[in-house]
């Protein structure tokens, strides 16, 4: 995050203003994140059960259509501006579920719409959410290699 790039003066200033900065209300924030995040997961459970009952998915395979459905809903909610209001209230409760991923994709695309469909929407689609895919793929690749080596040795 480049924290070490601050000069001594900047560091001293940061220390000086520290007691003046408001401390976040930890408990209230956590409670909000818990309630909204839990609610989104409970809705996801409902969607999972729906796919298992009506479309012959199994417990294991129902995760995929559930995630896709949540992404559709979250994209639409971002489009009409509701999800960002929810995000202001819920903090991590709206960021950590996969709906937050959809929100990051859609809001980045919307924000740059004025620059055109190709250079604005398409190129900025993964501006925020790209980090998740990059770190996920790199981590999965490395861990996959390690696990594969273990399987070969054992």
């Amino acid at each position, binding site marked *: 995050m480049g924290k070490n790039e601050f000069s001594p003066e900047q560091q001293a200033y940061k220390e000086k203003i520290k007691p003046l900065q408001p401390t976040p209300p*930890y408990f209230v924030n956590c409670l909000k994140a818990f309630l909204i995040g839990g609610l989104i997961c409970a809705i996801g459970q409902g969607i999972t059960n729906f796919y298992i009952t009506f479309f012959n998915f199994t417990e294991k395979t129902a995760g995929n259509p559930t*995630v896709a459905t949540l992404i559709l809903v979250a*994209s639409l909610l971002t489009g009409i501006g509701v999800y960002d209001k929810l995000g202001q209230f819920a903090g991590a409760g709206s960021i950590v579920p996969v709906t937050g991923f*959809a929100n990051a994709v859609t809001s980045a695309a919307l924000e740059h719409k004025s620059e055109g469909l190709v250079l604005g929407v398409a190129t900025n689609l993964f501006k*925020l959410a790209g980090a998740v895919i990059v770190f996920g793929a790199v981590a999965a690749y490395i861990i996959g290699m390690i696990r*594969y080596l273990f399987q070969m040795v054992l």
Partner: protein
Amino acid sequence: MVEYFIAFVVGGLICVVGQLLMDIFKLTPAHVTSSFVVAGAALDGFGLYDKLIQFAGAGATVPITSFGHSLLHGAMAEADEHGFIGIAMGIFQLTSAGISSAILFGFIVAVLFKPKG
């Protein structure tokens, strides 16, 4: 009804961890989600995430940690068949629904709606 309750509690707790990372360690949302994906892949490396999904259902599949878990699962499934090369072939196999729908719906919404605020 019990499974809804478990999904609510487990999913909620994962979000609380994210909130604490944001409030106490001042991480940005992008840092939180990136760490969670790596954590999901790491937990799956030890076979722990599957147990969590069995226990919590959507409480474990809806948070972004399951994205890392699915990446590794797809990679390992292909690796069983094709060896080392399979890891690269399978890595996006299970997450394809999530990524392609995010691209599709994100694009459509961005075309149809006007930016707010």
